[in-house]
């Protein structure tokens, strides 16, 4: 038993990986998928081209490996990831 919002699509409420066509990848709870983009709640974004504080970079794959293990810190309350930037949308749990 619980609350359901089936009209929002099959990915509603699911933690998804939104891989972009560039070096960025978002992980967050999918609210809905619209023609204009993917609406994410409590999301995080990783840019594989950006250096960390120690000068190293983290690949998308390594970032997702951490995300699978622990989840992500919700740094972005809500965002619409533009559809034209999206390469794929997958369930985070499927990356385990």
């Amino acid at each position: 038993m619980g609350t359901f919002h089936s009209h929002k699509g099959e990915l509603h409420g699911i933690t998804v990986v939104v891989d972009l066509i560039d070096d960025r990848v978002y992980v967050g709870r999918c609210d809905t998928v619209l023609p204009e983009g993917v609406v994410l709640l409590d999301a995080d974004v990783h840019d594989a081209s950006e250096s960390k504080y120690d000068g190293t970079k983290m690949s998308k794959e390594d970032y997702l490996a951490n995300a699978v293990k622990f989840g992500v810190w919700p740094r972005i309350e809500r965002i619409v990831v533009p559809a034209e930037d999206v390469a794929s949308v997958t369930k985070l749990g499927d990356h385990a």
Partner: protein
Amino acid sequence: MPYDPMLVQPMREDMTSMNAEELLDAAAVDAFMAREGTKLLFVNSVCGCAAGQARPALRIALQHGTTPDHVGTVFAGQDLEATAKARGYFEQVPPSSPSAALFKGGDLVHFVPRHMIESRDANTIAFDLVSAFDEHCA
């Protein structure tokens, strides 16, 4: 904003019917965590997408021969103080609900985050829990 208490009552009873102790405030969480032995802390949720499978999974897992010494639950979005206090005991992992944290003494030894519950069936989630029980509670 918390849901109507009438709405969530069946979800609370789902937990207490499997002998999980409801931890309704910070003091109850601290008292629970101070106990000796292994402890499972389940973060309950109204979300049907995930919690709808998480509670049945826990019920299945608790029928296994090896289980934690103590099972407690807080309700995210409902019992705010208790949930915040509970999350303080596993602050190294991002918050999610539903989720389950297994402790041995005061150490977090296994964590099942929400994304490992979503879209999985109860038996698969239960297998994850049972594997952790066998490893840490035997």
